[in-house]
């Protein structure tokens, strides 16, 4: 899957699952500080990523995610791996 495709799908998930405003979402945006997503929200996003991209994201790697771009990068790595 192309990186741009992953990013587009990720943005859709953030809008649909976490109720974020599409315009606020950039790849540099930090979940907790910029997007006001709490820690449980990040966990929920990772669950949605697992379901939608059919990948498995271990907790140790999930804990390191702070920005939207990092989430896209992790999904990309998992799809390649």
């Amino acid at each position, binding site marked *: 899957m192309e990186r741009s495709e992953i990013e587009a799908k990720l943005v859709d998930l953030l809008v649909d699952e976490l109720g974020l405003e599409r315009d606020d979402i950039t790849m540099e945006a930090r979940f907790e500080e910029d997007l006001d997503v709490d820690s*449980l929200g990040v966990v*929920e996003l990772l*669950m949605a990523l697992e379901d939608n991209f059919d990948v498995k994201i271990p907790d140790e790697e999930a804990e390191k995610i702070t920005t939207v771009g990092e989430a896209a990068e992790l999904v990309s790595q998992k799809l390649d791996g």
Partner: protein
Amino acid sequence: MTGPISRVVLVTGGSRGIGRATAELLAGRGHKVAVNYVSNATAAADAVAAIDAAGGTAIAVQGDVGEEAAVERIVDEVQDQLGQIEILVNNAGITRDDLIMRMKPEAWDDVLQTNLRSVYLCSRAVMRSMLRARWGRIISVSSVAGVYGNAGQANYSAAKAGIIGFTKGLAKEVGSRGITVNAVAPGFIATDMTAALGEDTTSAAVERITLGRLGTAREVATAVGYLASDDASYITGQTVVVDGGLAL
């Protein structure tokens, strides 16, 4: 007008006592109930048969809820056979009473593992599907021992008080996702567990109970059933004491 929603329920330690009464009550409301048990397969089969006979749906699922691998397996089995768990009743409990001077570390550890660690393990195991559904009910069976303390039951009292703290903490953690977390604290209820106390202890207890009698397992189950219902949608982090006025 639609009928009540049929949900998937797991009752830990559901083969006897308060667990069984809760399983029967919830099945009677049209829910699909998994009756977990650890050793008494006959009692579990009995509970399932009673629910079947009453026109309900139930399965028996063996496993020690104090152990992580067993909990994962139990939850998987329930999910495969009935669907995602929407209502969790943490009821499994044991006693290993002794004076603190004589209490062996095993008696402490066993009680904490079965009565408290199980609550954490089971709640964690069902959380993913509850978060996804944005709906869930977790009800744990504490005890008046956890509220007021019981002599000779420091381990049991600690575990049951632990459930009350766990309930408050988890309630705050997941409240924004439509999941409520509550506890009930039964007083002296006529079950196998209290039958083991002997007549002297029981009659001394009855003298302190405002309603002048032991409670029945069903009288606790109805409180659990209320907390599990849609009617209790604005109650979370609470411990409902069901003790016949023991504390008054």
